[in-house]
């Protein structure tokens, strides 16, 4: 069977092809060659130039040019510098970093050593969430094996360059994926962010110049150095080079990990690579950037995915989660879902995020329970904008995005909730009635027997009726009815 090959695998080039626990497999696919070339025949400035020239931008979501960042850290004089790998992947529905660490840990180890050489650091730290035990196990083995082979440690390949890597475990706080909170957490303090500047590249871990890069960014580095910056820069759009790994989840046929060149259209990702929504349902929206991003709809089907185009559409690249929604998803409910997440994950340091998230959630909750007014709709918008402008860190500043983006794109759906007290997608149970269409009902009694609260009455072979006051809107009767006689209204 011939299928279109829309995907291009650079960061995940070895995932599923090599044994992640066997360093020889990685060495066999030209592993550690980029490091060897850099430290024995190259210069730190040469490496940084190459990374600048290839145009790669941070894959954790911020999209800051990696080469420029490395350049800042390299220019700082210090007795110690650090390379940090951010493996605190926490977006709901995102698992790109775990896949790379479990499938190709050596590419990250090698890239961290290359970064250390480029900026003049001898210590690397991987900040990885403790909920990834297998990724930790394979990473630890990769580091131990690299050390045993002389590819980490003192005087690597006789070049005089020393580099070693240790692990720090995250305890499950989403905010610790934010680089300043991550550094605080690594130092043993509370995982709370601080205002930048100073940027970590100038003063980070233990107030020393520190590079914090995401797993996927690192996984690209050896390939870039082996194949050359020009090759990498030839892939993607003008301002976003290379590929991006996305985790496709939700109402999509081909759930899974994909790696596509920047500039691919949303349509290609959802309908060709992803195979559309299951069960013939209509595609409604896709949330990119997780709880920090926004929803794109069919109107945006021709948008070429890159950092800047997604920002222009009030969403963001984020770390790569893509949650697909179909006609059965209520957008107000979706916004509430993400707010529920960020409300739990706010660290509480700044007021806009700590209290703002709670208030946003309360208003959304009011709307989904049918108690919202048009004034709430306006209040929601102004509060969201205020939080965006005043919160301390990336988490707070982006937390209102799902609300703003869905309000913008699905204003009619919000208005249906507050004006007509209806949920068009049939999700918000307080706004629904489940009714039996008498003409279709044959009186088989199946619904009455399955109803958990016994609120369906009727005689055999006569149309049944649901007692609305007692109905809990569980929908069990709808699933059971063989005559499509029961509907949500």
């Amino acid at each position, binding site marked *: 069977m011939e299928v279109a090959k829309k995907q291009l695998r650079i960061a995940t080039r070895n995932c*599923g*092809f090599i044994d992640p626990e066997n360093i020889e497999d990685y060495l066999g*696919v030209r592993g550690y060659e980029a490091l060897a070339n850099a430290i024995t025949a190259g210069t730190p400035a040469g490496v940084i130039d190459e990374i600048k020239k290839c145009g790669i931008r941070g894959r954790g979501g911020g999209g800051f040019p990696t080469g420029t960042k490395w350049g800042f850290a390299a220019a700082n004089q210090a007795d110690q510098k650090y390379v940090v790998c951010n493996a605190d992947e926490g977006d709901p529905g995102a698992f790109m970093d775990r896949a790379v660490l*479990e499938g190709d840990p050596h590419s990250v180890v090698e890239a961290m050593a290359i970064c250390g050489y480029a900026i003049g650091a001898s210590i690397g730290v991987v900040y990885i969430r403790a909920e990834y035990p297998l990724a930790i196990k394979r990473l630890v083995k990769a580091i131990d094996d690299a050390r045993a*082979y*002389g590819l980490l440690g003192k005087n690597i390949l006789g070049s005089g360059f020393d580099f070693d890597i240790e692990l720090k475990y995250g305890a499950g706080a989403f905010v610790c994926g934010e680089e300043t909170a991550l550094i605080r957490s690594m130092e043993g303090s509370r995982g709370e962010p601080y205002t930048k500047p100073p940027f970590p590249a100038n003063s980070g871990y233990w107030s020393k110049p520190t590079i914090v890069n995401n797993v996927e960014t690192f996984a690209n580095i050896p390939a870039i150095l082996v194949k050359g910056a020009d090759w990498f820069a030839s892939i993607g759009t003008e301002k976003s080079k290379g590929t991006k790994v996305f985790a496709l989840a939700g109402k999509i046929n081909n759930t*899974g990990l994909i790696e596509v060149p920047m500039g691919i259209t949303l349509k290609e990702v959802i309908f060709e690579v992803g195979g559309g929504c299951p069960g013939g349902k209509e595609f409604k929206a896709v949330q990119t950037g997780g709880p920090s991003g926004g929803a794109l709809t069919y109107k945006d089907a021709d948008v070429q995915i890159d950092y800047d185009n997604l920002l222009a559409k009030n969403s963001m690249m984020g770390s790569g989660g893509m949650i697909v929604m179909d006609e059965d998803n209520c957008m107000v409910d979706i916004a509430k879902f993400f707010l529920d997440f960020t409300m739990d994950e706010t660290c509480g340091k700044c007021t806009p995020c700590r209290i703002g998230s709670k208030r946003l959630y309360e208003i959304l909750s009011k709307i989904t329970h049918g108690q919202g007014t048009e004034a709430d709709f306006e209040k929601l918008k102004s509060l969201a904008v205020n939080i965006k402008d005043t919160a301390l860190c990336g988490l707070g500043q982006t937390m209102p995005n799902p609300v703003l983006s869905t309000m913008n794109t699905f204003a009619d759906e919000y208005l249906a909730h507050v004006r007509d007290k209806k949920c068009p997608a049939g999700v918000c149970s307080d706004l629904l009635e489940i009714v039996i269409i008498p003409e279709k009902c044959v009186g088989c009694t199946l619904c009455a027997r399955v109803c958990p609260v016994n609120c369906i009455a009727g005689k055999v072979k006569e149309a049944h009726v649901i007692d609305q006051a007692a109905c809990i809107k569980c929908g069990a009767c709808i699933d059971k009815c063989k005559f499509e006689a029961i509907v949500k209204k």
Partner: protein
Amino acid sequence: MAKIASAADLKKFQEDYKAKVAARKDKILVNVSLATCSIASGGKAVMEAMKDEATKQGLSNVEFMQSGCMTYCHSEPTVVVTLPGKEPVCFGKLDDKSARELVQKYLKTGELVENVIPVNYVRVEL
């Protein structure tokens, strides 16, 4: 294991590795995806079933390996089988029964079974 002490050592290792791979060309290679999610969906059981069935079928030239995520969440557990001289083929949605059938048919006779996952990507090889 020998330390790699110089860039030249690394080159030599790569050459030796190529020879090792070439020496395996008459073997049937079975690559089982064993990331956290693949294991959770039954990848390890599939590997055990295939090993057991290969022994039962008297196939002695089968080599098993584990790898990470094969990216096909929609069809886990997945394995990639490479018959001597053939392109690798990825099979998904396996369980004990279909894994044994895979050994009896594709590994033994080359007859395809269901749930073949077509290659939909270009892999950048260094």
